[in-house]
């Protein structure tokens, strides 16, 4: 436990050390990806979120139900609901030997709820949540081709929703779109193995994102635990 704490402190301190100081203290460390300053990351994975929230309970009160989708059926039998598909994309700028900033987007929850309308087609309510965050990443370049890192990010969450419902005597349903803008905070960690320009990474952590919200103020935690596998690319002049 004590050594883990020291490791985290070392990671964080790495971000504020100047290159010359770092080199003096850790002469065996090579600049990660030979000091290239730009990176791209694209990842796919799974997310675990609480199955029930004040938001979804309100949907149930109003007669909606979350029918099992094919995606859910493929990964059965989890206590808090099945894991959900997740996507992540990021642009990284290494600003110091052990420190970078990222603009990162994550796809969080996507859900589809149905209600027996009693007047023809079922009412349908869908939503999907995306984040757009600025992250600060402290990394430890164990080798020039391998690093571990921890990062923290904040930013807005955008949840687009669609309600398909009949509101007039016409047989056609009307589609109502809304966008809920919330916030999120993310704590992530990972490791990356890479050649000079292309590599592979694994990233995991937790995202807290109380969005969407309904008119009563009930929110759904669209984030939760996340585990991603992805590809990375590095380019740009050395620091």
């Amino acid at each position, binding site marked *: 436990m004590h050594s883990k704490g020291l490791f985290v402190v070392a990671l964080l301190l790495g971000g504020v050390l100047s290159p010359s100081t770092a080199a003096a203290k850790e002469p065996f460390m090579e600049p990660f990806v030979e000091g290239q300053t730009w990176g791209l990351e694209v990842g796919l994975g799974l997310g675990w979120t609480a199955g029930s929230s004040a938001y979804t309970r309100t949907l*149930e*009160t*109003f*007669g909606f139900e979350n029918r099992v989708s094919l995606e859910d059926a493929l990964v059965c039998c989890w206590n808090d609901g099945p894991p959900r598909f997740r996507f992540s994309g990021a642009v990284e700028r290494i600003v110091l030997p052990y420190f970078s900033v990222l603009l990162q987007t994550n796809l969080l929850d996507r859900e589809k709820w149905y209600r027996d309308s*009693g*007047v023809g087609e079922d*009412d349908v309510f869908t939503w999907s949540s995306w984040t757009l965050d600025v992250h600060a990443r402290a990394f430890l370049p164990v080798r020039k081709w391998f690093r571990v890192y921890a990062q923290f990010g904040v930013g807005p969450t955008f949840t687009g929703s669609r*309600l398909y419902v009949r509101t*007039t*005597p016409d047989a056609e349903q009307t589609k109502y779109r809304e966008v809920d803008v919330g916030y999120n905070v993310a704590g992530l960690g990972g490791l990356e193995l890479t050649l000079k320009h292309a590599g592979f990474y694994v990233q995991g952590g937790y995202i807290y994102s109380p969005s969407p919200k309904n008119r009563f103020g009930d929110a759904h935690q669209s984030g939760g635990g996340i585990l991603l596998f992805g590809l990375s690319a590095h380019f740009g002049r050395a620091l």
Partner: protein
Amino acid sequence: MNRTALLFSSMAFLLSAATCETDVVDDPGFQLWCGEQLCAWDLEEGEIRKVPTWHTHDYGVDLVGAPVLLSQGARSSASCVRIEVTSQIESGAMVTVEVDADGDGEVDWTVPVGSSERFVSRAHDVEVDVSIEAVFYLRKSAQGEAVVARLRVSEECAR
């Protein structure tokens, strides 16, 4: 009938048995509005208003003042009905669902709708033979805020 056809017909039967709920009234969600009035429900007394509920475009009916009486004839008969009400009713505003099972003008069954500070959904099973002439009433008898978002009457075949 070959084996495949038998399998599919058995599955279809099981599926229909598992979801055997038939709505006895139209527009249980008070979604269909013809101007200021509900299209499927008759306003017999009082004033109503279209109001948003959890979503701007998922509506409920606000029973304004008292008395207010909405009615609708049954669209099918049933031997037993489940009445589900989703509502937010201020304490003191007496709201009831009434069933005139054979359409003779006499109320045969009254289901009180409890008060609540926020929207809640409650279900009541009513063991009464509902004929095709039956009429269902939503009545508010006393002053107080009362919004009903859903009044579903369905035949329960599961018993």
